[in-house]
């Protein structure tokens, strides 16, 4: 009883603070994580992350700081425009997650490109 009274309040305070921190931090900072087809069917305001495959039409310019390409999945595709340093792995055929906004012009303006580390844990078997 003694312990509960002595420690109950500080514990509640800490829990409340942590809860508040989590709530307030995630409210503004979370984004939708979509596939290309999902984004095209549900126009979303705000920044989103879109996962897809890089198509063959990669065009680099501006010393490698600007690139346009098409990101696609099984059913849909969309043009992407990105300014910034390209991740090393970036090339046609890889999975990429583009973070940014879909513009009114139908082009996705990406502020960040995330590529995946080459597989260490994938179980893609050797096909003979």
């Amino acid at each position, binding site marked *: 009883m*003694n*312990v509960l009274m*002595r*420690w109950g309040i*500080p*514990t509640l305070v*800490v*829990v409340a*603070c*942590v809860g508040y*921190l*989590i709530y*307030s*931090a*995630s409210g*503004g*900072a*979370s*984004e*939708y*994580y*979509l596939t290309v087809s999902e984004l095209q069917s549900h126009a979303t305001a705000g920044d989103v*992350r879109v*996962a897809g495959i890089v198509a063959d039409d990669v065009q*680099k310019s*501006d*010393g*490698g*700081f600007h690139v346009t390409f098409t990101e696609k999945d099984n059913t849909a595709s969309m043009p992407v425009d990105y300014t*910034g*340093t*390209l*991740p*090393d*792995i*970036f*090339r*046609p*055929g890889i*999975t990429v*997650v583009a*973070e940014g906004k879909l513009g009114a012009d139908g082009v996705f303006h990406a502020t960040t490109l*995330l*590529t*995946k*580390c*080459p*597989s*260490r*844990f*994938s*179980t*893609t*078997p*050797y096909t*003979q």
Partner: protein
Amino acid sequence: MIIGYLGAGALLAGLVMGGFSAVLSFWSGWRGNVVMVQVGRRAFYAATAMVVLAGVLLEVGLLTHDFSLAYVTEHTDLSTPTALVASGFYGGQEGSLLYWALILGLLGSGSLVASAALGERLAAYAAGVLASILSFFLIVLVLVASPFDLLSITPPDGLGLNPVLRDGGMLIHPPVVLAGFASFAIPFSFAAAALLAGRTDAAWIAHTRRFALVAWSLQSAGLVLGMWWAYHVLGWGGYWGWDPVENVALMPWLATTAYLHSSQVQEKRGRLRTWNFSLVILAFLLVVFGTFIVRSGVVPSVHTFAVSAIGPWFLGFLFACIVFSAVLLSLRSSSFVDAREAAPIVSREGAFVMQNLLLVGAIAVVMWGTILPLVSGMLGAERVVAAPYYERAAAPIFAALLALMAAGPLLPWRRMGPSTLRALRWPGAAALVTLVVMLAGGARSVPALVAFALAAAAAATSITVYGRAVAASGGDWSRLARRLVTKRRRYGAYLAHIGLVVLAAGIAGSHLWQQEKEVTLAPGGSVTVAGYTLTYTGSRERQLPDHTELVAAMRFGDSTLEPSRATYAGLGGQSLTRVAISTTPVADVYVVLAGTNPDGSASFQVFVNPLVTWIWAGGAIIILGVVLGNVGERRAAAAPARRRVPVPVPG
């Protein structure tokens, strides 16, 4: 081919021995049959030997380029350098599971050998839990993810290792982190055994703490190595991305940090046993959870995880561990009657409880960010969070922990008095001086001011501890030396605290004050970032056996930085960054070559990262402190006579 059969056979034998050990150990512990306890333990040793044999066989298969093994074919080729071939052992799914089992078996065996002082029943239950965990891994290795699967036709060459992974960091970072993960099973097993046997005395505390410290040290090293590797190799200018893979390595470390401190309260006053058991168990559950997340592909991560067959197995194992732990804790913790009453909140014990609460809070923050995609995906649209979430939510918690580090060690175990306030003047003064200096220097960012002031305070407190030692030995060096050696656990711990403060300062500086510029320069052109000027002097191409290198030269003061890009023929023109870094204790100048252009200009990304070296230095100091503090501690805690630990409840 033979290796395939021998290896599979060894794993199968290991599984049988492990299962036998688990069943027999639990039974003999329950019945108190000493002879059978020893048999059960030997079965665990034998199972470990089988895993070692399998490991040796896999390594031989790798080094002899035995492409009849699917695993060898998938992860190496004839042109891969030998060191990287050898590291292929833990580089893939199946091999890393085998490595995990290997560490578990070896550390587990060591812990059982050292457990003689604990009594046969406790040792038996611990062996039972260890054997159960090992058997789970062996089940997965035998049935689902065998490193010894054979190909029906042996190819002439393998698939090789992706160039991004061809780096020295690959040799060191993964095995340390994997070993860290596996090692959390040891304290868990002893905690579970103590709950089963109803024993929580001094010998058990010392034994469990020792292995928790091993796990914590391995994980600390793994985390810092991972940060170092990400910073030096990946070329994005940072060292931590809050990716799920990183988060799951961090969480058990946070729980064990809490445990290592909180267990002192149990040692000194016999209190907080429920906390301690819960923290040790939580650390292991987080490891299993992390392994599930990382290998199942259920949350998006920059580390590729194909949705693999072993996901459901680990989910099932996680569920079993949670149920087992929950039942044990709820049944037994009611027997933890704290003989002593709780200390006031503002006391050493109070500080430890606050620390527990804050670290669990930090775990909750990281956990929420990690599973948000999973939870939100199940309830509707999938959402993710990025670094800003973690920073906003976790930074205040870490700041509060720094404040605890500054005040806690100076608080008495029981009542506060005037001498406490006097002692607190040192960290208080350090914080004040730091604030004044920073404000005078023009710093206005609140996070920076808070972080450095608290870091200075925490450092001052740790130094005060050493200062008291010097004062107490009255200027006699040999007395001081003897004191430091006899009480090395204490002084080593405060050295580790200093290391953590240095590391925290490094993170604060490099994070809050980083500057970055993207620029395209013609030869002769210059760029200035944060007062550092670099001049592009030209680039050249170099042809090496398996790749071509594009090297740019940037003159920086008296030296030349050479960021480059390496293009590997077989990879469709993809080129890899080799970062050029100029390091001083004050800041790193970090240059990435984005590419060259037809008109002769080159594009760069230049970062100035202040205080990054403090991160690596801090990490080294932490490890030094832990090692020095615990070297040669043979006997279960040299017991000061005054300690009164409540009589253990008979099992």
